[in-house]
């Protein structure tokens, strides 16, 4: 189980294995192509998301510390598949959920934070978290991350940033 007071430690071999294990569950019988997802490398998935007003965003999930920790989750420029502070803010959704917001530059650390307990950055940046929300690899997989972000986008989307 993740510990909110520890720094996530990468284990790429384990992350790749866990992604292979959990990907079919997330796809529910679809292929990556049918789902519209892309797998850039063994540890990186890109998932297209649309707001209720049909604005397009690309969510990048990375599994270097998975499954002990949640996947890294970042909204990225769909061309570069990366996020560059100052240049790519328009590729971030403004989500004003009680439990999730997207910060382009959290605490001036020059890092994007999808501020929710289902993302790796949340722990890496030592955000405070209640015990009942801490990531538990026995009971959570990356679908928890994806569902949480998708639902927050559906219910609390307020337009593009930048």
């Amino acid at each position, binding site marked *: 189980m993740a510990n909110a007071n520890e720094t996530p430690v990468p284990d790429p071999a384990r992350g790749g294995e866990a992604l292979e294990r959990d990907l079919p569950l997330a796809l529910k019988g679809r292929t990556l192509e049918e789902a519209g997802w892309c797998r850039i490398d063994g540890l990186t998935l890109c998932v297209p998301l649309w707001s209720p007003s049909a604005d397009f965003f690309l969510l990048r999930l990375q599994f270097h510390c998975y499954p002990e920790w949640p996947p890294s989750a970042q909204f990225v420029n769909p061309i570069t598949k990366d996020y560059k502070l100052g240049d790519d803010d328009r590729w971030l959704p403004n989500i004003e959920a009680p439990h999730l917001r997207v910060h382009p530059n959290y605490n001036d650390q020059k890092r994007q934070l999808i501020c929710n*307990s289902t993302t790796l950055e949340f722990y890496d940046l030592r955000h405070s978290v209640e015990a009942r929300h801490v990531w538990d690899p026995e009971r959570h997989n990356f679908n*928890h991350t994806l569902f949480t972000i998708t639902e927050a986008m559906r219910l609390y989307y307020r337009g593009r940033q930048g």
Partner: protein
Amino acid sequence: MAEVADENEVVDFAKETRVVVLNTKTNRDVTFKVSWTTTLQAVWDASYGKFNPAEHKDADDKFQCEHAGADLTPYLGLTLRQTKEQHICPARKYQIVGGTGGA
């Protein structure tokens, strides 16, 4: 995906009915049969033991209709027969949504 509910479905309330519960924390689902006199609360409670031994209800878990994520909290005391008669989540496909923190 739109919820499919057959309004002309012939139901024998003396028999059992099939329910599906999706756990959105893992995307695993379970299907099981219960009597029409079972409440939604009881369906929700019974589903946890069918996922895996580590699964249990968290204080801020929610029970929703899988179709559009409609909140079922106001209806937890209704039996499945009552939910059918009142057209509440008529496909009997439900989902558990876990609480998360942040912002």
